[in-house]
């Protein structure tokens, strides 16, 4: 088997956060010892609450932040050694808000062709040709070439952002909430487009989203993040059918399908999101977990393999006194 297109080995990112004017800076582990593998053509859905470290992960993958520890490998090469330009050819982002991610003073042609100019690829003619082709690919007519972002709708802008990401023919696209700023009817168009492009070019996506219905639809694998840790990772089928971690279950329960026969679900998540500077002892999730026992407060759960991935929960660990066989929450 060839090397995974993207691999994270024990990646950690620690920020130092000042507490008050004279306080000593304290460490905040935004990403805490994360290991991941992505095969070509896969879509990894990364889900979790705000503040759990999803966006820090995206920044590390894009080379915008250097990990404090660990390695990120693209096709088996560590990206630490590569310069930003080389990395940008292989990994491209699509951000949430197409209103702030496009320069309002540049024309669409300028915006989409910028990656080519940065990398000094081709001449003016070949660049224009590439821009036209890419715009067609994302379903934009050539007449938008000389318009400005302000003249476009939200959905069209997101198509421009996708065109800009794809013009370099990257291997991996980091989609950070690509549809959450869009209307429902536009969201489905963009999701269809992303799916088509993935099939056509064999792209690999890291798809960050808070909308689990969208993740279920698009992803092949799902990683659930909580306080900088990936607490469960599995194939999308397995995760949605038999979630192993109580937090995964809470997230799945919060999906509001348009079914009027059901009321608002009870997530059984008590307390609010904990302070990441002073995370709870033992299992970080224990203050909110409906299954928590004293053991969870003192002992950090190990990573245990599951059918298609892994999970960190005492209930799933055969070596833990709390182990329950074949327990699906």
């Amino acid at each position, binding site marked *: 088997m060839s090397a995974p297109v993207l691999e994270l080995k024990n990646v950690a990112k620690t920020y130092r956060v000042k507490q008050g004017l004279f306080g000593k800076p304290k460490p905040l582990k935004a990403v805490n010892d994360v290991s991941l593998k992505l095969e070509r053509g896969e879509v990894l859905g990364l889900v979790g*609450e705000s503040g759990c470290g999803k966006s820090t992960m995206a920044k590390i993958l894009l080379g915008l932040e250097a990990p404090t520890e660990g390695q990120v490998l693209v096709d088996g090469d560590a990206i630490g050694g590569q310069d930003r330009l080389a990395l940008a050819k292989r990994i491209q982002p699509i951000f949430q808000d197409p209103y702030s991610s496009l320069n309002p003073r540049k024309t669409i042609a300028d915006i989409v062709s910028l990656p080519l100019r940065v990398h000094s690829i081709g001449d003016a003619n070949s660049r224009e040709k590439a821009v036209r082709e890419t715009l067609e690919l994302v379903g934009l007519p050539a007449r938008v070439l000389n318009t400005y972002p302000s003249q476009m709708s939200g959905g069209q802008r997101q198509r421009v952002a996708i065109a800009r990401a794809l013009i370099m023919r990257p291997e991996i696209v980091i989609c950070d909430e690509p549809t959450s700023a869009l209307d*429902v*009817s536009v969201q489905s168009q963009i999701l269809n487009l992303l799916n088509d492009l993935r099939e056509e070019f064999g792209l690999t996506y890291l798809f960050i989203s808070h909308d689990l*219905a969208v993740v279920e*639809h698009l992803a092949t694998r799902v990683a659930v993040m909580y306080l900088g840790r990936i607490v469960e990772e599995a194939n999308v089928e397995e995760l949605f059918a038999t979630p192993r971690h109580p937090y995964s279950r809470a997230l799945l329960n*919060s*999906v509001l399908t348009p079914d*009027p026969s059901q009321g608002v*679900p009870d997530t059984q998540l008590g307390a609010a*999101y904990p302070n990441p500077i002073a995370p709870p002892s033992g299992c970080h999730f224990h203050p909110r977990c409906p299954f928590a026992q004293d053991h969870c407060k003192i002992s950090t759960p190990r990573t245990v393999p599951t059918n298609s991935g892994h999970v960190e929960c005492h209930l799933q660990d055969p070596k833990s006194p709390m182990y329950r066989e074949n327990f699906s929450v």
Partner: protein
Amino acid sequence: MSHIQDTVKPLLSVRGLTLDIPLASGTLHAVRGIDFDLHKGETLCIVGESGSGKSLTSLAVMGLLEKNIRRSAEQLNFDGIDLIGASKRQMRGLRGDRIAMIFQEPMTSLNPAYTIGDQLVEALRLHRKVSREKARERAIELLEKVGITAAASRLSQYPHQLSGGLRQRVVIAMALMCEPELIIADEPTTALDVTIQAQILSLLVELTKEMDVAMILITHDLGVVARVADKVGVMYAGELVETGPATDVFGKPMHPYTRGLLHCIPQPGKTKRGEKLGTIPGIVPSLIGDVQGCAFRTRCPHVVEACRGDIPERGQPPHEFLCVHADGARAAEGEPA
């Protein structure tokens, strides 16, 4: 759309509400003659995409429109009070007292310079002659009710010291201080995480039922609507194109736009994974100048010549819709009649 007058008088009755915004390029008809009734203890969800006029509708009821927006209505009646004719003073008396608001971003509705306690106490003492002590007691009682632990000690905290979910709970507590009869919540959970969203929504449902408060909930999220609403109004380009009980609108959506929206969202268990999602091609038409016929016709798969003319009201109250097709073109989509 008209409704048969129920035997019980509605708390809020809206007929022909129209909002026009004069622009340099002509008049923008943001809301074009909408009707709805809301009874005590009922929850109406108005769902629509951005620019459909749903937020303006709620602001029009509150009397909080920008000065340049022209509001007119055959009837805008809250418990016998004509809100169109009401003076500014009268409206100020109603707002925060009998009609309360909850907005999307809790940080914008809380004053960062005052403690939670100050703001809760003020909300009550502005409308009621009660002592500071009594108001404080009520504030603690309500903070506990909305699920905030150690309520008494929270009173001295400032909004920035709370998480987004807690802030929205404080805003809900503040809205309840004067025991309102109507709560207008404009996208109250859009800024929150999914798990917190579920908590806040169940809190709103519980409290409105318990205190018999009517609620208008504005949202773009069909999932929220289905789980919360008694009644649904689907808004498109300034019109309520379909109204009815939630079970009817979701069980048998009549308007092509309502069905289109439902096909756009992936539904775990229903939509096949990776399958193409439904789309609504085109964009919302400009509402500047004269708008004639069905505004959805430019995007509708069932458009016919008659769509340019007057659009009849269809269906039986309480489930009604606006469409030239008697069955809302359900048969054409292979849906059971």
